[in-house]
């Protein structure tokens, strides 16, 4: 079980809650379970969500494991110049 924090706008499509306890071993499973629980999140995942694990931002490595005691924070996937 990991505790996941959603950024402000994303929490509006996740029952208005910022913090969620999810049983997920990696980013892929986390996204799947969030989408099952809150279908409104799916378009956001399609557009891109980055996952910060203990402060390190992962944008594409969906196989990245989620340690139980890690701080996990969802962020918008960013554009750069």
């Amino acid at each position, binding site marked *: 079980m990991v505790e996941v*924090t959603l*950024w*402000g*706008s994303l929490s*509006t499509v996740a029952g*208005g809650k910022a913090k969620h306890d999810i049983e997920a071993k990696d980013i892929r499973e986390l996204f799947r379970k969030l989408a099952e629980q809150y279908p409104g999140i799916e378009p956001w995942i399609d*557009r891109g969500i980055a996952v*910060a694990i*203990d*402060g*390190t*931002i*992962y*944008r*594409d*490595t969906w196989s*990245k494991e989620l340690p139980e005691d890690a*701080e996990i*924070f969802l*962020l*918008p996937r*960013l*554009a*750069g*110049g």
Partner: protein
Amino acid sequence: MNFDPRFTGRKFSSVGTRPLRPDGIDKVTGRARYGADFNMAGQLVGRILRSPHAHAVIKSIDTSKAEKLAGVKAVITAKDLPDLTDGDAAMYDILDNSMARKKALYDGHAVAAVAAIDARIARQALKLIEVDYEVLPHVTDVDEAAHHHAPLINDQVFTEGLEEKPAKPSNITKRTQFGHGDVHKGFAEADFVIERSFKTEQTHQGYIEPHACVASVNPDGTADLWVCTQGHFVYRQHCAQLLGLEASKLRVTSSEIGGGFGGKTHVWAEPVALALSRKAGRPVKLVMTRDEVFRASGPTSATSIDVRIGAKKDGTITAAEATLRYSCGPYAGSWAEIGAMTAFACYKLENVKTVGFEVLVNRPKTAAYRAPSAPMAAFAVESSIDELAREIGMDAVDFRIKNAAQEGTRASYGPVYGPIGIGPTLEAVKKHPHMKAPLKANQGRGMACGFWFNFGGQTCVDLNIGMDGSVSLAVGTVDVGGSRASLSLVAAEELGIDYSQLKAIVADTSSLGYNDMTDGSRGTFSSSMATISAARNAILILRDRAAQMWDIPVEDVVWEKGHAIAKGEKYGNLSPLSLKDIAAKSGTTGGPIAGHSELVADGAGVSFATHICDIEVDPETGATRVIRYTVVQDAGKAVHPTYVEGQYQGGAAQGIGWALNEEYIYGKDGRLQNAGFLDYRIPVCSDLPMIDTQILEIPNPNHPYGVRGVGETSIVPPLAAIANAVSNAVGVRMTHIPMSPPRILAALDAEREG
């Protein structure tokens, strides 16, 4: 991916040195081939007809007269680019932006295009195309567009991110929010509160090379595109989807690039050139004029930002909040979102809240510009931080040091920081001689901090060892800032060979696996990781070949300083084999020797910078002169320090132009008034002092060498540093960028009039 990216703290031989740039001779002798330097036999000249209206329904387009003109080989409209986007809203916007379908949404929006045997006939043909417009009310100002009475740009847009879907459409496409704590409680605890509103005008990246491409579509469905781009693999994906081509049959070759800075991350002219070529059955060359680049490529947002920061008497910030409105052009974007994430990222804040609003306007579609959205937010926040320090009576640097984020701080955008460099950049600035240098009359000094995320992405590298022992490195990230040099240094480091033995190239899309765009300061970060991985894979083969040559187990062979060494006393009579020795025998030990790597480079470390600037202001004319400028920035590890310094200086130079001069000026008719470098003035060498740099190296724990991206952060602090310097010089807080002479005089007049 079987690759451990963790920082190891190794000592370097090649990395950190400053060899000559591999592309230097070609560039100074004119041999380097840029987008417009490529030609194909039988190529036609493409030209685009653009809307003169900021907002208009396209009732009809009659191309018959143009088609009959001798020498015209193809005329296209949106009908020749049918919608194949299959519900992908972002791709539909790219399609509509490439060629307007129902409405022209800004002055310069493409509505038709021709391919002719020469430029004169192409221009004549454009004049023969008859477009029947129904002109609509327009809006170009970000604040006016956000107003509920503003002309609607898209009546299907309902603001996202609200708790309930709004009943009426709006020009605000999205609301985003970040933060933590309780700002009301924080402001209640504050002894001092600063509340200010700021504006920044739209600017262009100002790359010297205009967009240019040559497209050739064959009857069998294969195609070639030669183009100036920051990401030829992404261009291939987008163009293939928009044209209905198979991606693998569209070969895209990137040219040398005369600047991109985020502005060459999107297709505009390329789908049009391909559609013209498909219709004409001949190659088509399309080069945008400077006027077109300004009117119809992708400048940055204009912004309107409100900031409120509170602090105790001892200088502790108790609360900070900001509302940020960013223009997106006529299509949805996420520019305010990034501003809202970066605004307070430099600080340790218990109570912080930022809200961003994405606003549609009748201007070109906003594109990324070097650390997109961060400079404007930094301008607003760092100006307010300076004022708050003054109110409290603290030194501006000390105030920032007291409140700077550090390892373990919860970032204003959410997660907790790992090792970061904001504190060290501030300490370096505090000690820098620039801060103690005397100022003369009418001169002011300002400093400011900046933050950028950096990121990685999908990356692929091939490393091939020739039979003579020379090494070629094929990468897929376009070299926008010296990556061929830095990646050669990295490969030399891993292989233990001399830099001169290596030649790096940017491979075309048919020669290498997919690579994301060179953006997000990712070129050297990502491709160095793939290069290290590819070199290590090549070393596995080199060890195996050496083992064959010696007829000993491969486990007994190690790779040290460019040589295979048989370890153990029993091999004492075996002399080390160099890479060259092993390569020479490769034909009989298993064939070509190569190392490949395909990976996702994640874990790019965030980056911070602090800048110092001295400005002299002429109080009679409002003219400004940059007297001295210093950049201090964390690079993680500077692979080729000269290029890193160049990135620092380039970002500062662009920021100086943005802060003091550059501005899109629209008339009441919604048309751009200054689409050229005479009226839109970017800084030239004679405008600038030597920009001093100081590289700090706080290793990124998620890269084997500790590398962080360095390309973007350097443009984040200048707007604020210069605004603080000008404000200190004239004694009036400047709140509107650019601080052009008329705006400075107006601020001085307003101050005098009270």
